[in-house]
């Protein structure tokens, strides 16, 4: 065990910190919103683009990417340090994260040279924003049953169908998208991976308002949308492989547990500040039990992330660690927010900037948002299926 980083890496951390102290936007409404920062106005979008450009100018965007594509081939340690510092300093997220984390690595691995040249630079600078077209109304947990059709017609595909839960579609410039190109093939074999210009005729985006009242995701309808054949990534009908083979070039193990830890710190701050039934919250033994239990679960995940990071540095495979992280972290985040509501009592449900709302009403919003995170990106039930089958070898059965 050795939890320290090398001198060089610690120097890098100091550089990042120094940079953040200079460049971090001061109290900026356009870039704040707790767990659920949504880009729901032109001001927010341009502020967020500006922030990504600032980070990019400093060389801190996609540092894990190969140098030829604009990265620095930074070590896993440095990626982790950078991500951790960003979260620790509560830096706004990067608006182009879907391009940076999903599409970019996919193109680097499976794209053509032309596709890389065309798309990668603007992903880095946030000049073009991407959304992800995977989920459909009839295919949630069972993604491979997707039905959106793309038929080759000369030099282009003609796309018809519907996507849903498409976050960022309302302002994205492009969508990377899974479509069915061979309806006769077994369901995993007839899927292709397309890049679709969101300004194409025949695309309609309808916002779906979340239970929090925010327009976070969308339905996207395709009616005879023409997509040039050159926008196919990988083999025709080989889209399932493309979507699943993408190696992450960004290591985020620490970032998500660091965020959880931060949420926990916020909860402890709240607990120290508030009184309940006339006495300080932190003096109530039952609440102390609950808080300590949460702290322990958070720290266990923190060390688990460090271990995963360390394993990866050593070249060990992660196994089902992504599923464990998703399952445990989302439920922890929600439990932390629920504990905050318990502490807040009648103040708990007060949202937004209403008078008397604590922490500008982020707790109730995050309490809902974190429930959404348990559901989204593979529900807890799906993660448990994955863990029981892949890690424990239990039969698929039913």
């Amino acid at each position, binding site marked *: 065990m050795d939890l320290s980083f090398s001198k060089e890496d610690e120097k890098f951390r100091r550089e990042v910190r120094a940079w953040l102290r200079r460049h971090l936007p001061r109290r900026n409404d356009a870039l704040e919103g707790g767990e659920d920062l949504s880009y729901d106005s032109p001001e927010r979008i341009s502020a967020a683009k500006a922030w990504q450009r600032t980070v990019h100018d400093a060389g801190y965007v996609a540092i894990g990417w190969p140098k030829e594509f604009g990265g620095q081939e930074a070590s896993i340690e440095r990626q982790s340090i950078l991500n951790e510092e960003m979260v620790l300093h509560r830096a706004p997220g990067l608006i182009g994260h879907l391009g940076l984390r999903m599409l970019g690595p996919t193109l680097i691995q499976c794209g053509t040279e032309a596709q890389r040249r065309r798309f990668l630079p603007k992903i880095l600078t946030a000049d073009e924003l991407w959304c992800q077209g995977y*989920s459909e109304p*009839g*295919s*949630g*947990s*069972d993604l491979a*049953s997707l039905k959106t059709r793309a038929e080759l017609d000369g030099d282009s595909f003609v796309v018809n169908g519907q996507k*849903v*839960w498409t976050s960022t579609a309302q302002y994205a410039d492009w969508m990377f998208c899974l479509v069915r190109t061979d309806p006769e093939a077994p369901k995993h074999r007839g899927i292709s991976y397309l890049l679709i210009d969101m300004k194409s005729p025949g695309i309609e985006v309808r916002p*779906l*308002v*979340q*239970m929090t*009242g925010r327009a976070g995701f969308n339905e996207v309808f395709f009616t005879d949308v023409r997509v040039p054949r050159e926008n196919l990534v990988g083999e025709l009908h080989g889209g399932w492989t493309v979507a699943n083979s993408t190696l992450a070039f960004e290591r985020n193990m620490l970032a998500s547990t660091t965020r959880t830890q931060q949420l926990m710190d916020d909860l402890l701050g709240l607990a120290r500040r508030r*009184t*309940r*039934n*006339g006495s300080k919250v932190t003096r109530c033994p*039952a609440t102390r039990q609950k808080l300590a239990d949460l702290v322990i679960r958070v720290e266990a995940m923190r060390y688990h992330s460090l271990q995963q990071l360390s394993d990866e540095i050593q070249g060990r495979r992660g196994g089902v660690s992504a599923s464990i992280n998703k399952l445990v972290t989302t439920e922890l985040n929600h439990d932390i927010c629920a504990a905050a*509501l*318990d502490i807040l*009592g*009648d*103040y*708990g*449900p*007060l*949202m*937004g900037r*209403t*008078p*008397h*709302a604590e922490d500008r*009403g982020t707790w*109730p919003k995050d*309490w*809902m948002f974190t*429930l*959404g995170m*348990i*559901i*989204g990106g593979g*529900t*807890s*039930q799906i993660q*448990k299926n994955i863990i029981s089958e892949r890690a424990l070898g239990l039969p698929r059965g*039913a």
Partner: protein
Amino acid sequence: MHFGLTADQELLAASARDFLAAESPPATVRRIVEDDAGVSPELNAKIAQQGWQGMLVPEEYGGQGLGVLDAAVVLTELGRFLTPTPFLSSAVLATTLLSIAASAAQRRRWLPRLASGEMLATVAWLEESDRLDPAGIALRVRRARDRFRLSGSKLFVLDAQMADLYLLAARTAAGQGRDGVSLFAIPRDATGISLTPLHNFDRTRRLFEMRFDDVVVDRDQLVGREGKAWPHLERMLNVACVAIAAESQGGAERALELAVEYAKVREQFGRPIGSFQAVKHLAAECFAEIEPSRSLLWYAAWAQQGASKEASRAASMAKARLGDVYSRTTNKSVQIHGGIGFTWEHDVHFWFKRAKSNEVLFGGPDFHRERVAALSGW
């Protein structure tokens, strides 16, 4: 030996359910929820026509003179349909408080109008400290010759935007104990009152901050004996617990129904998600909590006619239990719905939010568990 509703009460439940299914379907609830003021005078009028506003008003004052269990029957249905209407605030809480605390003259003055729905009232209890014990009432009312004057504020006042009369709990003597708490009935149009809406996420129920800026109160607005209002408030608290538990019972039943209905039709991997054991067991766990909680609720409602200690204990038991059960049920219901359950467009989030709002209103589960412990003598 009969544990359950009477034939009359079953009839009341069925007719309330039919009435609300017709008059308060999700579309109507949604309209009121999205309305700024959160009020539907038409719906309120129809509900008043049902006679519900006078359910707890003694017959001599033009009401039906029914009991808490009857009110619980109606509240279960209101909770099932999430009907945004001032039944709880006016017909249950304010009416209970006036019935037990007010003078005969005051009762004659207000109860008939409350019974008809012509007038609405609400109770202003909590302050910034958010405490339900006597120390929570700190707002000081000072005597100025034969009148009273008060300045300060109250929080979390239910339905204040539509109430015509505020029943205000305040201190007429220094201290933090039971003594010195008095009750005043203050008309909406009294000079110096201002309302600020609190943006709570449960939009089926609106809460307000009330500010009193040197409001002058006449002697005849004092309800009950000066300084002796605490026992009345405590009795009303018990009724509030039962009432909110009843709403939660109906809401939990409906939230589970929604999940089950959805699970029967929504398909994944080629079969209804309701055929997956994980979903089945989530639903079964909810059901196995909801069924016994109904019995507990009925008992608690019935116990309000009896000795005050058992009435308090039973009320807190029901409030604590239904608080947990309703929240847990709606959480699972949202999860069974998957992504669609997280959208504003689908209705289930209204129950999810109402569950949390019911859970904290008039004391959360931990407050009431501690109260049960104290009342049990350990």
